[in-house]
């Protein structure tokens, strides 16, 4: 209860801070409204951005998806920001979330560094290429391909199955050579789970594509990491989810640097987004016990489908 009050106070404080800070600018903007309509309303966007990302953070936790995958299509589709800035912000949002979660997941042994290191090397290298492609493409092509990618992600979310403990009869030779194996304690059953993986070469090739998409669209990549780690490689579901979350901190770092170096960083977009998502995630964790995640997940999938369609139609010039 005390935590909820603290969070509510923080939210009100942040919004008030924005309005108070911008009041003189607003006042001067009003006086100049005859000459510049946009200057009277500029502050609405960062405030809205904070509110939307706050809600996004809550919903993402409840639906069990990464905030990054929601951020780019929704902010890119409905806010007046260029996609370069949106993708950079999306990467930094996903990066901040994974940096915040990483230490706990690593210390508990849920995220596995040995599994993450080879995957991260491939994905982070590919993400640099993806970021360069994204920055080089014209906006309409980026929007169109983003729309297609988001609709494909919706299909993956609807169709992909999950396996708590996939059966891996024999570790493949590459994972044996790399000694990728682990043990984690399953609190629900009280058991220590020994695990190993297979199909490592094929999976590493898949991570090239995942890395490119993460860098190109600034999406984060949990939506793809988890199915590949869990279903393709055979890592237990909890290890896959945790390692995927941690992986984002490495994959998104490399792509984020490309965007930073290309000047695609506007603090007025990035900081409200990062603070909003993180605060929202915190609230979401508190609400998790009281909600039905399956219902929320359906809403998120519908929202993603709508955003994907919006991006696609915006890209091909039907709904600009």
């Amino acid at each position, binding site marked *: 209860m005390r935590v909820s009050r603290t969070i509510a106070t923080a939210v009100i404080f942040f919004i008030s*801070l*924005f309005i108070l*800070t911008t009041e003189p600018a607003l006042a001067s903007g009003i006086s100049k409204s005859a000459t510049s309509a*946009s*200057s009277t*309303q*500029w502050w609405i*966007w960062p405030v809205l951005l904070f509110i939307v990302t706050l809600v996004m953070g809550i919903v993402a936790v409840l639906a069990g998806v990464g905030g990054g995958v929601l951020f780019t299509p929704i902010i890119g589709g409905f806010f*007046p*920001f*260029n996609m*370069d800035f949106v993708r950079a912000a999306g990467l*930094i949002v996903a*990066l901040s979330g994974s*940096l*915040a979660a*990483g*230490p*706990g997941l*690593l*210390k508990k*042994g849920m995220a*596995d*560094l040995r599994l993450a*290191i*080879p995957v991260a090397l491939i994905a*982070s*290298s590919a993400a*640099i290429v993806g970021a*360069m492609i994204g*920055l*080089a493409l014209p906006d309409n092509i980026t929007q169109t391909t983003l729309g297609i990618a988001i609709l494909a992600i919706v299909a993956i979310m609807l169709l992909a199955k999950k396996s708590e403990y996939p059966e891996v009869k024999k570790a493949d030779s590459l994972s*044996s050579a*790399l*000694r990728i*194996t*682990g*043990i984690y*304690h399953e609190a629900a059953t009280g058991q*220590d789970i*020994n695990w190993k993986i297979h199909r490592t070469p094929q999976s590493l090739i898949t991570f090239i594509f995942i890395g490119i998409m993460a860098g190109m669209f600034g999406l984060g990549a949990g939506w793809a990491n988890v199915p590949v780690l869990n279903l393709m490689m055979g890592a237990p579901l909890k290890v896959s989810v945790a390692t995927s979350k941690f992986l984002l*901190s490495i994959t998104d*770092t*490399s792509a*984020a*640097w*490309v*965007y*930073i*170096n*290309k*000047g695609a*960083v506007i*603090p*007025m*977009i*990035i*900081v409200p987004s*990062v*603070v909003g998502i993180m605060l929202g995630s915190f609230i979401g964790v508190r609400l998790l016990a009281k909600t039905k995640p399956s219902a929320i997940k359906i809403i998120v999938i519908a929202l993603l489908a709508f955003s994907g369609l919006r991006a696609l139609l915006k890209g091909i010039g039907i709904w600009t």
Partner: protein
Amino acid sequence: MSTPESQLKEKQQVAVEAGKRLIATEEQTTYAKILDIGMKIGLIAIIVAFFLYAFGILSPKIPVTEVSKYWGMKSHDYLEAVNIQPGWSWLSMYKHGDFLNFFPIAFLAGLTIVCYVAIIPILIRKKDAIYAVLALLEVLVLLGAASGLLAAGGH
């Protein structure tokens, strides 16, 4: 070089020693500790820097009322319009509130490099040559991205 069995033994040993059934290797624990401290510093710094910017304590290079003129542009058009060089030119603009925000963002983006550098000696000591090389390669990739060299072709 450690075998899969000895590696598993090490994980189990760590768990027993911790007494909490936490299962993580030495390099994983080291990585986590550095990430934990760095992440907290970075996130606090990003809020402080934005506070200084938003409250006008440090004057911005681009007035806050004018930011909306640029956020709809492609990034290279924006840089040209505000006459800023790409890359690390923000380093010299630390006196401006808006560019001060680049420091914590870059710090967060650079944290992974520090974590990797810290685990390389552990991997070498454990004679885990393959992972030491993989970690070193990751550092090189991230440094390449951070330096701007790997993105030189992108526009």
